C-alpha cells in the first residue's frame, strides 16, 4: 500500500490521565442467548455487581457514563428511576456523560472521568453498557446492521450491490489482507480457536461448553467467503460495568486497585465509509495505540495480556499489527498455533473469549477481564499479570486503554 499513516487518519486530542483514575470495581450481568430481558434491567444487574465488587453502595455513585449513541441504555433518567425505586434520593447530584459505555468508549471513558474526578464533581463514576440484541433479533426489532443500512451514502452506493452487512465488509477486508500479506485461513482460525478455548474456562461465557479446535474450524462452511460463522462475533444479551474513582479513594476500597496508565484514540478520515479507507487493511489503532503507550511510558513488549474488540477475527489480526505487537503484515504468523493462549508463551489474548465466544457486550466485558487479570481473579489467569491493554474499535475510530496493577 502506498497510503502513509498521515494520509488517512489521525490521533484524538486527549488529556494525559496517567495515574489519575483507578478502576475499583467490575461487574457483569448474566450473558445469554435471547433472554427476553430489557437492556436497562441487564445494565442494573451489571452495575450492582460492579458496586458490590468495589464494596460500594448505589448511594455512593455520583457519576454515570453510558453510550448515548445506542437506544435502551442505563442513562441518567433510567438510573434515577431505578435507584429511587430502591430507596435512593432521586434528586441527588449526578455528574453524567453519554460519551461512555462500550466500543471505543469503553477505552476512552476514563479521560472524561478524570476531569470530573479532578474537579471534584464526582468521586465514584460508573461506566455501563448493555445490549439485548439477541432478544431484539428474535423479535425482528433491529440488528447491528441498522446503523449502516440507515446511512444514506451506504444505502445508495453499497446496499444496491449487496455490500452489506458487516460480515461482507470484513470478508472483503480479509481477502485483501490475505492478498497483501499472505494471511491464511489457519491463522484467522487460530484467533477463533484461542477465544473459544478461553471461553471454555469461563463459566459465564455464552460459548462455554462448546469446544472448537482448528480442524473443526476449517471444516465449517463459509458464511461470507473467506469468513466462516466462527470468524464472526456472537449476538447475545448481556451487560457489564466498571467503577472509576481516584487512586487515593481506590486504596480504601475492597479490591486491589487497578490504575489507568494510558489512553489513546484514533480516527479514520474516511469515517464510516470503510470501502474508501486509505489503507484498506488497517485500523485506526495505527493512530491510537502509540498515543496510549507513550502516555503509559511502555512499549508493546511490556504488555502481559491484550483484549481486543473483535467483531471478526480479521479485525483482531489487524489491530495486533497496528498496535505494534508485530510488524504490519506479520500478524498471521504472530497469532498462529497457541501463541494467543493464556498459557501459550506468546501474547495472552481475549482471555475471557471476546466477542467471538464470551459475549457480545461491545468491549466493556473486555475491560472487566483486564481488571480481573491484573487482580489475579481471571478464569484463564496469566501468571503475575501487571500490564493489560484493551483495544476498542468501531471502524471509523479505535481506542487503546492501558491498565496497570497499582502495586506494579
Amino acid at each position, binding site marked *: 500500500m502506498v497510503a502513509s499513516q498521515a494520509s488517512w487518519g489521525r490521533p484524538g486530542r486527549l488529556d494525559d490521565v496517567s495515574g489519575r483514575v483507578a478502576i475499583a470495581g467490575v461487574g457483569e450481568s448474566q450473558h445469554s442467548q435471547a433472554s427476553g430481558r430489557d437492556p436497562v434491567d441487564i445494565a442494573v444487574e451489571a452495575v450492582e455487581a460492579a458496586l458490590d465488587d468495589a464494596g460500594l453502595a448505589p448511594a455512593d455513585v455520583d457519576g454515570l457514563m453510558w453510550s448515548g449513541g445506542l437506544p435502551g441504555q442505563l442513562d441518567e433518567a433510567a438510573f434515577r428511576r431505578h435507584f429511587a425505586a430502591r430507596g435512593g434520593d432521586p434528586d441527588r447530584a449526578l455528574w453524567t456523560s453519554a460519551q461512555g459505555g462500550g466500543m471505543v468508549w469503553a477505552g476512552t471513558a476514563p479521560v472524561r472521568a478524570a476531569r470530573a474526578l479532578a474537579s471534584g464533581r464526582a468521586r465514584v463514576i460508573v461506566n455501563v453498557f448493555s445490549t439485548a440484541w439477541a432478544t431484539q433479533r428474535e423479535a425482528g426489532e433491529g440488528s447491528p446492521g441498522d446503523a449502516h443500512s440507515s446511512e444514506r451514502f451506504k*444505502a445508495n*452506493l453499497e446496499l444496491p450491490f449487496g455490500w452489506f452487512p458487516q460480515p*461482507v465488509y470484513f470478508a472483503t477486508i480479509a481477502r485483501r489482507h490475505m492478498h497483501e500479506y499472505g494471511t491464511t485461513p489457519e491463522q484467522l482460525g487460530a484467533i477463533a480457536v484461542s477465544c473459544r478455548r478461553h471461553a471454555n474456562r469461563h463459566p459465564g461465557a455464552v460459548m462455554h461448553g462448546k469446544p472448537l479446535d482448528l480442524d473443526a474450524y476449517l471444516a465449517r462452511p463459509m458464511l*461470507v*467467503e473467506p469468513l466462516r460463522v466462527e470468524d464472526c462475533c456472537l449476538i447475545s444479551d448481556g451487560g457489564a460495568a466498571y467503577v472509576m474513582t481516584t487512586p487515593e479513594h481506590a486504596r480504601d476500597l475492597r479490591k486491589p486497585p487497578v490504575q489507568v496508565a494510558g489512553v489513546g484514540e484514533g480516527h479514520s*478520515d474516511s469515517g464510516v465509509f470503510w470501502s474508501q479507507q486509505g489503507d484498506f487493511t488497517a485500523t485506526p489503532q495505527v493512530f491510537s495505540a502509540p498515543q496510549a503507550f507513550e502516555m503509559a511510558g511502555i512499549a508493546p513488549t511490556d504488555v502481559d495480556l491484550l483484549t481486543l474488540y473483535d467483531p471478526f477475527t480479521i479485525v483482531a489480526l489487524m489491530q495486533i499489527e497496528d498496535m505494534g505487537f508485530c510488524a504490519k503484515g506479520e500478524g498471521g504468523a504472530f497469532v498462529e498455533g497457541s501463541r494467543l493462549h493464556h498459557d501459550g508463551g506468546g501474547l495472552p489474548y481475549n482471555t475471557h473469549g471476546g466477542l467471538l465466544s464470551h459475549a457480545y457486550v461491545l468491549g466493556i466485558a473486555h475491560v472487566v477481564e483486564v481488571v480481573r487479570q491484573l487482580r489475579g481473579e481471571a478464569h484463564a489467569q496469566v501468571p503475575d499479570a501487571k500490564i493489560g491493554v484493551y483495544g476498542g474499535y468501531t471502524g471509523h475510530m479505535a481506542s487503546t486503554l492501558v491498565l496497570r496493577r497499582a502495586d506494579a
Partner: protein
Amino acid sequence: MKGALPDLSFEPTRAFWEAAAREELAVPRCASCGRWVWYPRERCPDCEADEMPWTPLSGRGTLFSWASVERALFKPFAERAPYVTGLVAVEEDPRVRIVTTVVDCDPGALRVDMPVEVVFRELSFPGEDGVVTAPFFRPVPHPATGEALR
C-alpha cells in the same frame, strides 16, 4: 428491514444513478485540481474547491477485493445468493473504489487486482417497486479466447 434499491431523490448520489441510466459510470471530479472525489463530498480533499462536476470514467479498473456471499444476510438478496460483491479500483485513480456486484464470473477464478470492466444491467428486488440501471463489473474477457484475463 429497508430495501436495496437506491433512493433517486437523495441529491448527493442522484447523478451516479442518472449516469448509470445513460450507461455511464461517473463520479465527481474537482474542477480546480482534477482529483476524482469519492464518495461525493462538499469540498475537494486536496484543494478545498467546491466545484466537482460528475465526470464519466472509462469503466475499466481492477478488482480490489471481494466477498462471496454464500447465504444472504441482507433479505433483498436472499434469492440472489450465492453472489459476489466487492470493490473495483478505477483505472483513472485507484483510490476511487466503486462498490459493485461482480457478474458473469466463476467465483473460484477471481483474482485480486485482475482487470474488470463495467457492464450495465437492470436491477430490481422482489417486493420492491421500481427498477434502475446499475453498473456491475465483470472480468475482462481475453480478446481471442474469451477467457477472463488474470
